[in-house]
């Protein structure tokens, strides 16, 4: 079988759907392919995101896909000390806890309303190039081979990021830039109703444990461990089971869902475009290296790529040079933050449990109501000068 389209989007997550929507809204003939049989399933996500992003990506908030609204984040040290951070100061992962399976469908429905065609159970199996230019993909649709010709391919294939690699853009990751994760939807537990909780320290080496509330007694309880810090192979689930067993708030909980996966926590790529192709979201490694949050960046980069694809169609120019506009759009908005957080992540790895305890106890004593991360670092600098020597450049 053969197909033709102007813009082919590979991957039906939020990044792919926003790209498809914005390209279709501008008049492009758009095809979105998704390898699974359902958009938004299975979920591979802790589902936390900040409210502020939705204005920027022009998606009106809808109660249908919001599980819970929270006021901010609670940071818990290894010994159990804690302090609270207001939503506005807590970064891009706090404010809303989504129902991703509904959110993703709503974003894909927006793309469909704009005129995009969606094919489920259709996975890309390779990239077709002519004279070093991407001109389509080979795929398998409901088990049948399918060749898709496209003027422009938007790779939104998530953490796997295989489309880019087939095309010759190296998106492979170092061990120290991969976090491997496991999560339960736990019910029958004591939750902090208005806060997303983050437990730092050796319970999750190089990462953290998250508890994001979904309703009165249910939360996404999961953890991510930096691959370079993982002692025993294949042991992430074991770390989470131990954390839950050792914490009386969670030990009595029962699982409704188990989720596994990995996220990139790398610095930005040197290039996210080539002739005939743009990368968005996790496929472009746009995840925040400290929080592991990727939804907002995926939506934003998807929107940018969709708009640039439509412009390229108008100009009939799908060259790497033309796609520089996409590079500039996301880099102007995100690149500095991604680099800064990646460097901070590299340093955070070196902090011991005792040091985390000291920092959080100090912050709790000083009181950090409505504090920004910047102010927090300033307090640490004043109170614990030895510890922050390495962090000077961020303060």
């Amino acid at each position: 079988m053969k197909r033709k389209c102007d813009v082919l989007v590979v991957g039906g997550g939020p990044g792919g759907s926003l790209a498809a929507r914005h390209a279709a809204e501008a008049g492009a003939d758009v095809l979105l392919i998704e390898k699974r049989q359902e958009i938004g399933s299975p979920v591979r996500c802790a589902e936390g995101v900040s409210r502020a992003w939705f204005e920027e990506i022009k998606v009106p908030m809808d109660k249908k896909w919001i599980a819970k609204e929270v006021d901010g984040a609670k940071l818990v040290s290894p010994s159990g000390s804690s302090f609270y951070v207001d939503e506005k100061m807590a970064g891009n992962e706090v404010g809303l806890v989504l129902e991703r399976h509904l959110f993703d469908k709503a974003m894909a429905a927006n793309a469909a309303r704009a005129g995009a065609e969606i094919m489920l159970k259709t996975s890309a199996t390779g990239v077709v190039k002519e004279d070093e230019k991407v001109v389509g993909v080979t795929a398998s649709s409901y088990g049948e081979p399918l060749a898709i010709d496209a003027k422009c391919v938007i790779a939104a294939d998530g953490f796997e990021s295989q489309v880019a690699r087939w095309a010759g853009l190296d998106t492979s990751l170092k061990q120290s830039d991969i976090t491997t994760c496991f999560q339960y939807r736990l019910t029958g537990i004591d939750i902090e109703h208005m806060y997303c909780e983050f437990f730092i320290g050796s319970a999750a080496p190089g990462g953290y444990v998250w508890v994001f509330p979904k309703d009165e007694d249910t939360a996404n309880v999961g953890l991510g461990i930096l691959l370079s810090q993982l002692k025993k192979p294949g042991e992430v689930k074991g770390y989470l089971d131990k954390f839950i067993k050792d914490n009386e708030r969670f030990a009595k909980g029962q699982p409704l869902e188990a989720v596994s996966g990995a996220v990139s926590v790398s610095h930005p790529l040197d290039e996210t475009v080539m002739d005939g192709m743009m990368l968005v979201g996790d496929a472009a490694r746009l995840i925040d290296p400290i929080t592991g949050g990727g939804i907002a960046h995926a939506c934003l980069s998807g929107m940018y790529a969709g708009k640039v694809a439509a412009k390229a169609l108008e100009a009939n120019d799908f060259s790497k040079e033309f796609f520089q506009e996409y590079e500039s759009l996301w880099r102007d908005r995100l690149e500095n933050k991604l680099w800064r957080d990646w460097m901070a992540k590299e340093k955070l790895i070196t902090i011991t449990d005792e040091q985390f305890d000291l920092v959080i106890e100090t912050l709790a004593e000083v009181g950090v109501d409505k504090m920004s991360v910047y102010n927090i670092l300033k307090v640490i600098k004043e109170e614990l000068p030895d510890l922050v020597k390495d962090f000077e450049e961020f303060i």
Partner: protein
Amino acid sequence: MIVTVEMCMHCAACVGSCPKNAVFLNDTIPLFTDACNRCGRCVKVCPVGALEMEAET
């Protein structure tokens, strides 16, 4: 590579972590191509321990 199908969660952590792009999900189960250089990254990253390196033949 030995995949314990009963343990696999189909999450593709192995796919995105593979430095050689040598793993893909055949529908849901990971399959390994000849590009695999037995680096063991996928065994380590698998959140549920479903992968095991087979002995070299």
